[in-house]
Structure formats: structure tokens, C-alpha cells
């Protein structure tokens, strides 16, 4: 029972976050970009639950929209990487030989690249914006998924029970659906949880550095950078995006660490 606690906590924190990102802006429908210079740095109160920033924008609305921005980018990057990784792993396994060697070499090279550097190098040159950021983060995130699914896939393909199914005449698709997917999925999910956290941190770092993002986009890293000059005047406003980042990254860390491991043995 006690062993289940972190897992439950991780799931709860993550779900609350997802809820805030998806439904928050709908329920709290204040425009995050609406300025009112005359009420800059308003204190937290009934009108603005978390106060306002240097341009009189509502902090709560900006934090919620920031959640949507970060979560949207992170999930897209993971989904694209997952798709790319699995498809390439399938291709490598199907063709084998030179194709798989070349793909492995290429993915190793990309994997050995400090990815954020590539994003920093190219984001502004390519014009910035959420789509460019997704593209650049995806460009360096997929090899992890390829390596994982390729190595597990190969291991499985050589395993006795897959061999047995093959000999029994099961089709490739059937083996894939019944014997490969259930094994790989938990590993990929666990990897996904870790990398969502990493990508959220990357997005915040890029926002903090002002790379690939332009105002008035509500983004936590950029909010922190804008507000840190005013930390004595607006402590709550500064704390809000900080806590948002810590919340989601911590939730995902707990989640990935305590995720129930796959039942089928591997490695």
C-alpha cells in the first residue's frame, strides 16, 4: 500500500496539472494579454487572484495559458518523437542489414548532440514561434524513442515466444499487436514521462533566454525573466510561474520513478 503512495501522488499532481492546462483557461476566462497599465503590480485580491504584472496583465490567466503552451509543445514533441522513433525502429527491424546500421549510426549521432544547443542555434534564425520550437525539439528528441523501441523490439524478435508464434504461423501484424506493443508500451510511457519534464524545463529555459518566443505569449520562463527585476515589488507574481514549473516537473519525476514496471521480463 505504502509503495503505491508516490505513484498515486504523481498521477494526482499530473492530472491536476493537465486539468489546469486544458480547462483552466476555459473556467478562468480572463484574457492573459489584456493590459491595464494603470493597474500594474496590483496586489493579489478578488479582482486578480495572483495580482498583475508590470503591464497590468492578470498573472493567474498568464500562468494557466503558460501551462497550455508548455504542455502543448511538450506533448506534441513526445507524440512526434514516439511516432518517428517507432516507425524508424520498425523500418530498421524490417530491412535489417545496412539500413539498420545506418539508422543506428544516425540516431547515435543525433542522440550524442546536446539538443538544446541546436535549438538555440536555429530557433531565431528560422523565425521562432511554437511550431519552430516543436520542430527543433522534436529534431533532437526522437533518437531516444528509436533506440529504446529498436533494442526492445530486437530482443523480443529473437525471444522464444515470438519465435514460437512465428512458427505457429501468426502474421507480423498480429505478433506486433499482441506481443510487441504490450511490452514496449510501458517503457515508452515511462520514457515519455521523463522527457515531458525535460522538455518543459527546456521550454522554460528558452523562454527565460528569450529564444524562439515573442511577446505577448504567456510562457513561464519569459514571465520569470520579465518579473525578476521586480522581485521585491511583486513577489507573488514572480513565485507563481516558478511554482508552476516546479509542480509539473516534480509531478512527472515522481510519476516516472514510481511507474509500475512492465510485467514481461526484459534485459
Amino acid at each position, binding site marked *: 500500500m505504502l509503495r503505491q503512495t508516490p505513484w498515486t501522488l504523481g498521477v494526482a499532481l499530473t492530472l491536476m496539472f493537465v486539468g489546469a492546462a486544458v480547462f483552466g483557461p476555459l473556467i478562468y476566462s480572463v484574457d492573459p494579454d489584456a493590459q491595464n497599465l494603470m493597474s500594474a503590480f496590483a496586489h493579489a485580491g478578488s479582482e486578480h487572484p495572483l495580482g498583475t504584472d508590470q503591464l497590468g496583465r492578470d498573472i493567474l490567466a498568464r500562468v494557466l495559458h503558460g501551462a497550455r503552451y508548455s504542455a502543448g509543445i511538450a506533448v506534441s514533441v513526445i507524440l512526434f518523437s514516439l511516432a518517428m522513433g517507432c516507425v524508424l525502429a520498425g523500418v530498421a527491424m524490417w530491412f535489417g542489414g545496412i539500413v539498420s546500421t545506418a539508422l543506428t*549510426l544516425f540516431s*547515435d*549521432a*543525433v542522440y*550524442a*548532440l*546536446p539538443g*538544446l*544547443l*541546436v535549438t*538555440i*542555434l*536555429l530557433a*531565431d*534564425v*528560422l523565425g521562432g514561434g511554437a511550431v519552430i520550437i516543436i520542430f527543433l525539439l522534436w529534431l533532437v528528441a526522437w533518437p531516444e524513442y528509436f533506440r529504446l523501441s529498436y533494442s526492445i523490439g530486437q530482443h523480443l524478435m529473437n525471444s522464444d515466444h515470438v519465435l514460437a508464434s512465428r512458427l505457429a504461423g501468426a502474421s507480423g501484424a498480429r505478433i506486433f499487436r499482441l506481443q510487441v506493443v504490450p511490452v514496449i508500451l510501458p517503457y515508452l510511457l515511462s520514457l515519455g514521462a521523463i522527457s515531458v519534464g525535460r522538455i518543459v*524545463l527546456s521550454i*522554460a*529555459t528558452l523562454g*527565460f*533566454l*528569450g*529564444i524562439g518566443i515573442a511577446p505577448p505569449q504567456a510562457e513561464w*520562463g519569459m514571465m*520569470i525573466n520579465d518579473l*525578476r527585476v521586480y*522581485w521585491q515589488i511583486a513577489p507573488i507574481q514572480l513565485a507563481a510561474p*516558478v511554482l508552476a*514549473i*516546479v509542480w509539473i*516537473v*516534480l509531478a512527472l*519525476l515522481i510519476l516516472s520513478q514510481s511507474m509500475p514496471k512492465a510485467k514481461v521480463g526484459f534485459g
Partner: protein
Amino acid sequence: MTLASVLARKALLIVTITLLVATCSFWAVHLLPENLALQIAAARFSGAEPSQDLAYVVNQTYGLDRPILVQYADWLARTLRFDFGTSLVTGRDVSHDIAHHGVNSLRTVFWGFLAGVGFALPIGYFCGRFADSRLDTALTVFSATVSTIPSFLVAIIMVQIFVVEFGLATLSGTSGWTRLWVLILTIALSVSGALSRVVRAAVIDVRGQPYMQHALMRGVPERQLFWRHGAKNALRPILNYLPVVFMFLIYDVIVIETVFNYHGLGWALINAVRALDVPLMQGLVLALVLFYLCCTTISDLLTWRIYRQRAV
């Protein structure tokens, strides 16, 4: 596996990655609508209004009127020779700026990494040795928190506390303990956060091995047993984890140097990006990538040396 083959594989990887980065930056720049020739002209004649005549001269000098594939090949060749041209901002040789900032970065990264490992090993060892004790829980919460907070925030907090409030550190210059200790500490914190958890897992794993349990039951003192037989096996996952540590080290260099106004490679990179100083950006990114690859090569060599009976 021989040393030669380890090195050869690493060299192949380094060349591939260098070409990869060079290719990305070349095409990104050359697909831009803005006229590179004019930009270079503006920089070379610093402040002068560049004219079309000037652009023509620059086109000739830099060979920007040649077919794009010829330019690309030339670009790759120059990249492999580490010739990035001159900075659009200072007009100086890019390699000069890289050398200058590189020494500064090396200084903090080297000591920061050493200090981080110095934190992580004992913390991780005691957590693993006394797993699930109160000490373990407290240290685990601490390291989880450190690795959860983005390093730019850690840096901001350190500046507020140690520079602004207590005046124990400074934000200018590139030498002297008062300047460097906060930077080193910040890097060390960020290195030790995740690393100490890996050390903890490795220690727990080794202590749970049947040979250890067996020897323990036969009455061999634990301390002697661990240091003589366990340590070497526990070191392996830690060495394997080092590339991840190095990767985050590179990211930290960028944000921490920016917040601390420390003039190393990361600081220079952010300023080059903001000035769209493309030659300098490319040079700095490649320098950081190569620095990272050198670090991983060293850790691979260490692994190979210690465990050379097995494949790397």
C-alpha cells in the same frame, strides 16, 4: 575491444556530428531571405551604410556568388579546419573569441564538475548504504528538488542571496575566488542533484548482489567488502550516466553564465544569438558540442580502461 577501435568509433562520431551541425547552420542561414552579403558588409565596414556596390565586392571576396553546393562544400571544409571567419560584431576572428571565452568556461566547469561529483558520491553512498532511513529521505527530497528547479532559477536565487543580500560574491571579472565560488557552487548543485540519485541506486544494487550478500553472511566486514569488491562494480552505472551529466552541464553553462554575467562560451552564445552574429553563433555552438564530446570520450576511455575485459 582495443583502444584504437574505441577511439576510431569516437572520432567517427565526432566528425559526423560536426558535419551535422555545420550542415544545419549552413542551410538555415542560406535559406534566409535576408542578404548575408549585406550583413557581412555592414560588419566589416562597421557602421558604414553598406551599398549595393559594397555588396558586390563582398560577394566577390567571400565567394557568395558561387553555386550554393560549391559554397556548402567550402563551408564544410572550413568548418573542419575550425575556420569560422570573423565576428559580425567585433570584427575579430571567431576562433580568437572562442579561445578567450573557452578558457573562462573551462575554469568554472572543471571545478564545478569536480565539486558536484564531490557532493554526489558521499551523498549517494550514504543514501544507498542507509536506504530508506531518515537521512536517505531527507537527502533524496533535497536532490529531487535541486534537479526539479530549472538552473536559471537556482542561479537567480544564488545571485539574490550571495551577491545582493550578503555581498559575499561579485558579478564582474573572470577570476578570483569571490567571483568564482558561487558559480562553481551553482554548477556543483546542478551536477550533484541527479548524479547522487544514480550513485544511490548503484550502491543499493551492488549491495543487493548475491556475492555481496554471501560474503556478508560469511562475516566479511561490510566496509572492507564494499571498497574492495563492490566499488568497482558500483562505479560502472555512474560512469555510464556521465554523458547525461555532461549534457546538462553544457545547458547550465549557458543559463548560469548568462545570469551571473560570466563571460564564458554560454554567455557569448546568448549575446551572439541576440545580435544574430551568425559566424560567432556557429563557432560557439560547435565549440560547446565538441567540448561535450571530449568529455564523453574521456568518460568512455575511463570505462574502457577499468572494464576492458568487456565490450564498451
